[in-house]
């Protein structure tokens, strides 16, 4: 269980990136954070990954407070971020320094097979396409068997076909160990394809606007009517979140008025 309690982040220059985020994610649940640009999705993910420190609030994993990168939390970035001087298999093994060589080999081989790149094991990242590189990055995060996997728009730079195949690879890997997944995306289709719940966020400051459960059965068919309905629901919520005037809670408006007064 991943719990975010009253999480907020204010940058040194006074920009409020996140304000009072409360969210709990069940073990094995896939939650998608969705929202327009600048609503703090990536910031939130970086807080959970321990790459940035929250200004206030706490992040708890199974009751244990997280303060910094944690072995049970993996992250896949927007870019593959593979180390160009390591072969594909060495890149996947990057986080497996602590286990025995034979087990490491086994796990890497299994991951390579899962992502369908076994024949590329000895190649350098530069020889792979963008989609293949991102698959390696996903495998690198998965081989450490994290309890929580954070995905920061990992498919945003890819074309639609590649993206669809990567969704399948991701779900295939997820099926094995069922980690908790927090996926940041700006693609509603993607959120509905992958997630059990969509959390719609709102900018300035970043906060949670609405949560929508997505209870479609898997595998999900994009041409299905329920799928279409879910997409429409998320889109409507997203639409509302971007019209701050009449959707803003009274309390928030008061606070802003007070800030103006000062």
């Amino acid at each position, binding site marked *: 269980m991943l719990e975010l309690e009253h999480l907020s982040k204010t940058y040194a220059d006074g920009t409020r990136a996140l304000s009072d985020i409360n969210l709990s994610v069940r073990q094995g649940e896939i939650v998608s954070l969705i929202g327009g640009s600048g609503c703090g999705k990536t910031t939130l993910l970086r807080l959970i990954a321990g*790459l940035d420190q929250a200004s206030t609030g706490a992040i708890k994993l199974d009751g244990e407070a997280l303060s*910094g990168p944690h*072995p049970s939390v993996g992250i896949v970035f927007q870019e593959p971020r593979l*180390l160009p001087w390591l072969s594909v298999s060495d890149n996947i093994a*990057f*986080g497996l320094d602590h286990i025995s060589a034979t087990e490491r080999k086994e796990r890497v081989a299994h991951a390579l097979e899962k992502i369908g790149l076994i024949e590329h094991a000895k190649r350098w990242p530069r020889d792979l396409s963008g989609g293949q590189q991102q698959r390696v990055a996903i495998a690198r995060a998965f081989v450490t068997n994290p309890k929580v996997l954070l995905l920061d728009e990992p498919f945003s730079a890819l074309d639609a076909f590649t993206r669809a195949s990567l969704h399948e690879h991701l779900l295939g890997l997820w099926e094995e160990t069922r980690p908790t997944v927090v996926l940041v995306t700006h693609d509603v289709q993607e959120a509905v394809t992958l997630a059990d719940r969509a959390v719609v966020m709102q900018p300035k400051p970043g906060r949670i606007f609405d949560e929508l459960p997505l209870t479609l059965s898997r595998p999900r068919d994009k041409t299905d009517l329920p799928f279409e309905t879910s997409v429409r629901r998320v889109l409507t919520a997203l639409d509302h979140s971007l019209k701050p005037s009449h959707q803003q809670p009274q309390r928030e408006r008061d606070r802003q008025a007070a800030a103006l007064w000062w």
Partner: protein
Amino acid sequence: MSGEIANSAWSSQQGAAALAAPSLTEKRRAFDWRILLGFLLPIAVALLWEAAVRFGLAQGRLVPPPSRIFATLLALAETGELWTHVWATLWRVLTGFIIGGVAGIVFGALSGSSETIRRLLDPTLQALRAIPSIAWVPLFILWLGIFEASKVALIAVGVFFPVYLGIAGAILSVDRKLVEVGHVFRLSRVQLARRILLPAVLPEAVIALRSGLGLGFMFVVAAEFMGASEGLGYLLVDGQQMGKPDQILAAIIAFALLGKIADSLLVLGTKPLVRWQDIVRERL
């Protein structure tokens, strides 16, 4: 006969593929031809000058023809004199390069990896860098005498600065995104340096060492000008004082060859370390 061969080639799949795409060796051969293009201009100029002197159009006293330069070079090589000079110069450059290079790497790494050390060291080193290295010569001679030590010190100073700047700059410009990958996998400072920073700075470190080596050869001439009894720089001075332009040019050619060979060896030696680079083509 040849038609038959072509037919059999076309009839098989591999044969067709081989005909369609030039094989790797063929590509290599084509590339070699273009390398030879670079020799065209100097050889043409040399031949023209040789002809001009032979046909009496020029005297060739101050600018000796290539044949005479090579004769001088050959004579120097046969008496063994050339090798003494080459060895003396090479020893000085290598010793100075190793001292300056190691110091540059150590100080560059320190200054690149710690903000405090950078603030402490960098201003002083930058101020020292602003001094033309030749200006140290009188001081080095006073301190270290006129023999090898002062020469090696001058070369080491010349090598130090480009290496220091290159290494510190390379560490400072390592991609933050890759460093974050290290943070995510909770690498310690030492692990981070070994597994991410070191490999990331290698390509630029090689370039820094190469420019250091180039400067080393520059400064060895200056060092040998200031009073040496052997070395290629001594050959230069000797040639000037004795009025032997062919000896000067022979020494210059020896310098060019030596510098190129040393640089190529450095590139060759470090190639396995930077083979992963995603660059347009091999560096020159």
